[in-house]
Each structure stands twice: as C-alpha cells, then as structure tokens.
C-alpha cells in the first residue's frame, strides 16, 4: 500500500521549485571533464566513436609541433577543413616567415593571428568546452601537450532547406518556414527584424543531448519580468534528453494539467517576428522547426497570420467564422443530445417531426448514439492523421461516407446525427491551431455526458466550469483570457475578435506590460 501511494505521489505531485527533474546517472565521463585539457585525453574519451575523426599532423616551425585536428564526420564541412585549415597549415605556409618563428609556446596565438583565415575561431582551455564543441559540429586543433586549443567553426551537415510550413499554410503571404537547423532559423528571424534590440541568447539543455536552443526577444519591447521568468523556468529544467520543443513546453507551462495550450508555437519566421514585436519571447530549439512563443492567450489560438495579410474586413469575417466554428465544434453534439432528450419545445414543429421520423427505429438513446459516432470520428481522425497522405484520404472517405451511410441504412443512427457529427468535424477543422483543436476534442465528451444527464442545465454547468478554468489560467503571469477578462479595451477592439485596419493599429496590443507600447516608437 505504502509503495503504491509513493508511486502515485511521484507521478502526480510535481516537486516545488523544480519542474520534473529526472536525474542523470553519475557518469564516469563527468570525472573526465574535470581533467586538464589535452588532445590525448580527448582522444581517449572520443575514440570509441567511429564517427569522430582524429587527424594528426606536424607544423614545421622553429620546433616540429605535433598537432591533432578532431572533428565529427558528417557534422563538419570537409571541404572547408581541407582547403582552408589543413592545406594552409601543412602545405601553403611551409616556409612562411611567421611559421619559422613558431614554437610550442606561441603556436596558438601565431596560428590564430596569421595562419587561419576563418571568422569563427577561438581559443579554449576547458575539457568540457572542447568535448561540447566537437560534438556540436565544430572542429578543434590541439597542439602537442598544450592545455589550450583552437576551435574552428566549420559546421556543415545535411539539412532540410527552407520550405513552406505544413501546419501553417497560407494563401497570401510569405512561404518560408523554419527548418530543423537552429542557425538557419535565427538567420530567418534576423532577416525579418534588422534591429539591434533583437536579442538571441544561446542556451544548452539536456545532459546527454546537449541540445542548443536560443531565447529570443526584443529588448526595448518585451517585459523584463517575462524574459527573466523564461530564463528562470528554463534553468530549472534538468533532464538527459531534449529532443524537441514538446519537452520544454510541458516543463515551463503554468498549468500542466490543463487541456488548453498555454504556449503557442509557430513554424513561420514572419509570425515569430510579429509576436516578438508584440513583446513576446520566442524559444527556438535546435532540431525542430517549431518555435515556442510565450506568453500565450486563448484568442491568439484562433487567429492566424493570414489575418494580417488580408484586408481588415476579410480578416474580420474569417475570424468570425473561426470563432463560430470553435463554438460549434465544442457544443454541437451536446446541444443535439440536450434538445432531442430534454428540450424538444425549442425545435419548430415541422423540424421536430422530421427529427422524430429520422430517429424512428434507432435503438439507442441520443447520448449513446452521439457518443458512439463521436468516438468513431475520433478514431477516423487519429487513423487518417498518421497514415501516408493517399491512404489517409481513403480512410476518410471510407469512414465518413461508407460507414456513415451504412450506419444510417442499418438504422443504428439517425441521419441528423450523421449531419451533426459531420458538422462537428468540419467545424473543428476551422480551429487553426492543432493544440486548441485537441483541447476542444477532449472537452466535447464530458459536455455530451452532462447534456445526456441534465440537458441544457448540464451543458451550461459544463461550459461554466470550462470558463472558470480558463479564467484561472495564466501563461507566464498573463491572464489566459486577456484581453476579454481582465478587459483591455484597446487590445480587444484592435486585434482580438476583429482586426482593425493597419492604419488604426497605432499602439501595441496591451496584453502585457510592454516596455515601449508604441509601434515604431512614435505612434
């Protein structure tokens, strides 16, 4: 009993102060890192990995200096190393006057000053730095038994190019999206915001994976409180592996038990740039094209970047459709259940007769009928999502048309039920954010049960519970339901349910305390 309780506690109670800490085992490797830097020790540590290359050579200066270049095959640009590092040192500079004066004591400074032409060159003296840089794709040259070495930035690996994002497609606007390579992503962002206030701060997470990530924000706009909170929460993450943004998301969000997303994400540089200009903070993780943006509020999950590229009136209409779609996706099945079970009086007589005729012979109560069909819909969605595209489409057609039609013909469900489920499915696709769409799918089921038990009273109670939950949520200190509650009238009128024309967007949305509330500093 005691051990069960302990296990449940471990699973459910998060330790205060630290967010889900999974301790790394004590590696002997840690001891190696404390040793003084030397090429030999690095070789001992890394030689068991076949992808690590150790190229030994001599520099013929005043002394004959043994050198060793260490790099990871596949992570470095071999051409660059051959042409601009090894060839000059071994061949081109033979007989060079600088080389003639070179001894072991001055080899590092002389090499950096006169022999190596690259931009990214620096000196290191710690074992940990050397291992980190080599495994991150940089190359390191060791000289004899010196306890210093030179790092050469010559990273180069196969990567996906800049392509159009799949999750945020757009009709009118830029097509470029982030890729899996951190530096490409930061460069895409830098191309959008060419201002010295743009901060790109590098961090590393994951004891084993040593994953690079950057925190980015605009210093004159982002609230210092939010920026420091981001760093504080990131610094508390202690885990072995950091293989994607999802790892971070769950550990830094305010309420991990809520079905609602409290951190937004984007694959588009223009969206990230726009968010940073609103005072938000971005977290770009190496190895994933998804960039996390904090803080997040509920309404932004229903707004898309296309709204800012279309004319205001079109954007307002699109937003209206999306909000209606989200509402329909949440309540359509439960309203069907409540109306057919408890509140037939609100249906016009003709329609009521038609519904009754359709339900004639259906052996299940409305709750069970709707519940079953919604579960079928979920299964179809889940099945279609992970299959290759052509098969996924087939599954959709088979499910929606054949199973639906067969179920109606067999008298298992009413035709109206199929229409309601179809409407729910289409409406949920109007929700532009996948995370919010998942939350909607989740809350639909309890609402259906409440509708089946208590009719509209149950649906109302369920909706109020969801509302109270939403009202209590915060994302990095910002109320989740802002700017509706607490009311921020300017933000509400400018860019929430409607999008004001660009000429009317004179000040930044007042969702949080931004440093400079005026766009371009003059509005």
């Amino acid at each position: 009993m005691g051990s069960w309780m302990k296990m449940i506690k471990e699973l459910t109670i998060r330790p205060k102060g630290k967010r889900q800490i999974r301790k790394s085992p004590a590696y002997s490797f840690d001891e190696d890192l404390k040793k003084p830097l030397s090429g030999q020790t690095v070789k001992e540590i890394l030689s068991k990995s076949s992808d690590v290359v150790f190229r030994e050579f001599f520099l013929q200066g005043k002394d004959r200096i043994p050198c060793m270049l260490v790099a990871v095959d596949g992570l470095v640009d071999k051409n660059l190393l051959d042409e601009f590092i090894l060839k000059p040192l071994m061949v081109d500079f033979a007989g060079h006057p600088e080389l003639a004066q070179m001894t072991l004591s001055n080899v590092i400074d002389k090499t950096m000053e006169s022999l190596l032409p690259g931009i990214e060159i620096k000196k290191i003296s710690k074992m940990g730095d050397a291992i980190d840089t080599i495994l991150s794709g940089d190359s390191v040259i060791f000289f004899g038994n010196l306890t210093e070495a030179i790092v050469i930035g010559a990273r180069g690996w196969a990567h996906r190019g800049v392509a159009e994002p799949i999750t945020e497609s757009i009709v009118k606007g830029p097509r470029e999206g982030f890729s899996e390579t951190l530096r490409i992503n930061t460069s895409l962002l830098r191309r959008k915001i060419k201002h010295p206030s743009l901060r790109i701060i590098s961090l590393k997470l994951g004891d084993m994976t040593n994953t690079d990530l950057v925190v980015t924000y605009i210093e004159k706009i982002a609230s210092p409180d939010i920026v420091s909170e981001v760093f504080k929460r990131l610094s508390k993450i202690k885990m072995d592996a950091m293989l994607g943004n999802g790892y971070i998301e769950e550990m830094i969000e305010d309420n991990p038990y809520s079905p609602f997303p409290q951190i937004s994400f984007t694959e588009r540089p223009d969206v990230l740039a726009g968010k940073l200009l609103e005072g938000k903070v971005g977290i770009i993780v190496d190895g994933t094209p998804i960039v996390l943006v904090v803080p997040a509020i509920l309404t932004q999950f229903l707004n898309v970047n296309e709204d800012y590229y279309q004319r205001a009136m079109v954007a307002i209409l699109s937003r209206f459709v999306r909000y209606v779609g989200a509402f329909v996706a949440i309540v359509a099945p439960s309203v069907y259940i409540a109306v057919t079970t408890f509140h037939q009086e609100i249906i016009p007589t003709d329609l009521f007769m038609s519904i009754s005729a359709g339900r004639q012979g259906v052996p299940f109560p409305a709750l069970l009928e709707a519940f079953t069909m919604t579960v079928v819909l979920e299964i179809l969605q889940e099945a279609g999502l992970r299959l290759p595209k052509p098969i996924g489409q087939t599954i959709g057609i088979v499910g929606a048309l054949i199973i639906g039609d067969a179920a109606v013909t067999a008298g298992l469900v009413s035709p109206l039920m199929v229409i309601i489920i179809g409407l729910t499915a289409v409406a949920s696709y109007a929700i532009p954010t996948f995370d919010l769409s998942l939350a909607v799918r989740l809350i639909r089921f309890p609402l259906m049960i409440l509708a089946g038990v208590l009719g509209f009273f149950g649906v109302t109670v369920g909706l109020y519970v969801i509302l109270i939950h939403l009202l209590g949520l915060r994302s990095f200190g910002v109320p989740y339901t802002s700017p509706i509650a607490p009311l921020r009238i300017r933000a509400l009128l400018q860019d929430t349910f409607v999008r004001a024309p660009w000429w009317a967007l004179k000040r930044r949305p007042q969702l949080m305390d931004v440093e400079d509330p005026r766009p371009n500093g003059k509005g």
Partner: protein
Amino acid sequence: MERISSHQFVVLSSAVLMGTTFLPIASIVTEVASRDGWMSVMPGFAVGIPYSLMVLSLLEQHPQKNLLQISEILLGKWISKITGVLYIFITCYFGGLLLGQAGDIYQSSIMPLTPIGMFYLGGILLVFYLVKSGIEVFSRFSEILFPLIIIALVLNMGLSISRMEQGELLPILSEGIKPVIWGGLKVAPFAMEYILFLAGILVFLPTGKRELAQLKRGVWRGVFLVGFLNMMVVLTQILIFGPEETVRIVYGLLVLGKMVEISRTVAGVESVFLGAWLGALIIKVGAFFFTVTWGLETVFNLKGLKWNLGVGVVFMGIAFKFTRGPDLVMEIGLVDNYLILPFASVWILTLWGISRWKGAGIS
C-alpha cells in the same frame, strides 16, 4: 493578496447587485404599486448609493480592512463579534436560499422530472469552484457573464415588443405617490444584499486616491445601470401581462422567454435564456459564499478547504429545506425585508456615524 482593479470592481458590483433581481422584481413592485411599480425600481436601487459611499469612505479611512475588521476598531471586540456572527448567519442563510431558487427555477420551468438535488449539486459545484479559484477569477467571471446577461435581458424584452399594449400603463399615478414609495422600499433590500458583499470585498480593492474616486463613480454607474435594466424589465412585464398577471407570475421573465417566437422558427427558447440566468444566479450565490468565508475568516479565523466545504454543505442543506416555489419566494422576501435591510442599514450607518464622530473628535 489578490487584488481587483477599479473596472473589475464596477462590473462585479453591477453583476452582484443585479443577481437575479430581474426575475421576481416585477411581481414584487407591482404587488405594492400596481401599474406604477416600474417607477419604484430606480429609487429603490438608489438607496444603495449612499450606503455604498459610506462603506467606501470607511475604506478610505481604514485601507485594506473589511467592514468586520473596521467594526472591531470602531465598536470594540465583542460587539463586532456579535455583528460578525449575525453577518455570517444572514449571508449564509440567504446564499442557501438563492441556491434553492436556482433549483426551483430550473425544475419548475424546463426540467420538471429531474430531481431538484441535481440542480443544487450542479450549482454548488460551480460556486465552489469559483470561490476556490479566488476573487480575481470571480471578477473575471463577472466581466464575461454580466454583458451576456444584459444581452439576454435585452433580447428577451426586445423579442416581446410585439406583445406590448401601451394601455396597460395608464392611468399613471392613479393611486398617488405613496405606493411608489412603498414599492421602492420593497426594492431596497436588493441594494442591501449588495452592501453585505461590499462589506467583505473591501480588502481586495485598490485604495489609491484616484482609484477610490473611480470606485465611487463606479458605484453610481452600476446602481443606475442595474436600476434602469430592472425598471425596463418591470415595464415590459406590465405592458405585456398587465398589473394583475404580473403580480401573479412570480418569475415573469421566464414566461416571457417561453413566449418568444420569431417567424415560426425560433420558439420556446427559455431554456437558452436560462443559461444566462444560471450565470446570474451563480454570481449572486458565489458572492454570498464569499461573504460567508470572509466572515468566518475574520471573526473566527476559520479558513481553508474544509471550512469552504462546510459552507457548501450548509448551503445545500438550506436549499433542500425549501424546495417548493411559493415557500422559497416568501422566505427570500422575509429575509430581505426583516434581516438584510435592517441589519445592513443599521450596521453601516452606525459605523459611518461613529467614524465621523471620532474623526471630528480627533480634529
């Protein structure tokens, strides 16, 4: 310590003041002032203004203290304890009755076969969750719900315009001014219910000079808005049902909701309106739940989850005692007229008077 802004206070105040007053008010004032009942509404609510201003002036002198704590300073320990016990008793009893009203309204109007306990349970769970989430969430809840309640009210009245008959209002003041004044006195307890909530929420209000001025302005605005809306509700019901029927139908607005029909397509939508009315009830019951918990904390230093659960159980018990409509409405009227009105008016006046007297003595 949680804090709410001046704007949130204004909305929350209006929502608590409004509560579900719009459901029985027409019947109450028309019973006394007949077809002139609508004139009683604004003066009745206006009684709340001087009392609210007195409470806010006490806050000015004793920042970040609720009225029970201020009582202790001005009246001494034992008198304030007795006042506190009365305050807890009244607010707890009234909160329970309001919870009972929620069940009564739902069961009598749209779901007669569902056990009334289910409505109590749903209502108290919502209130409990709201109270547990804190005063900030409560004020945000009001920020969202109050506009929806107003929209529902306006729609309910607007969609009934075609049934109005102007003749029902005439002749105006046929019985003289006295019934209108008596009608106002029947409305005054609604304002006093709000004053009891205000007594507790003071701790969470801003106390800067500018904010206090905003709070005072907010009280005026809130009272007039709620008074005006209720006046329109009474007017609509008198115009549609006539004075006699308005007195007879206790929850006239629910009947109006049943009568709404648009082009033979939308009809009998009272169950939809009831969604908004449930929100109003939750705000009102929540406000009294809060006052009880604040009272328990201030007077007996009892706070925490188990005491909140206890309050919830007591609310349920009171609600179960009066399950039938007429008994419940009569009991609410009795508590309003003979407990809340005298208690709040005497308490606030005494505190304000002593505070002024002491202030004058010091100066």
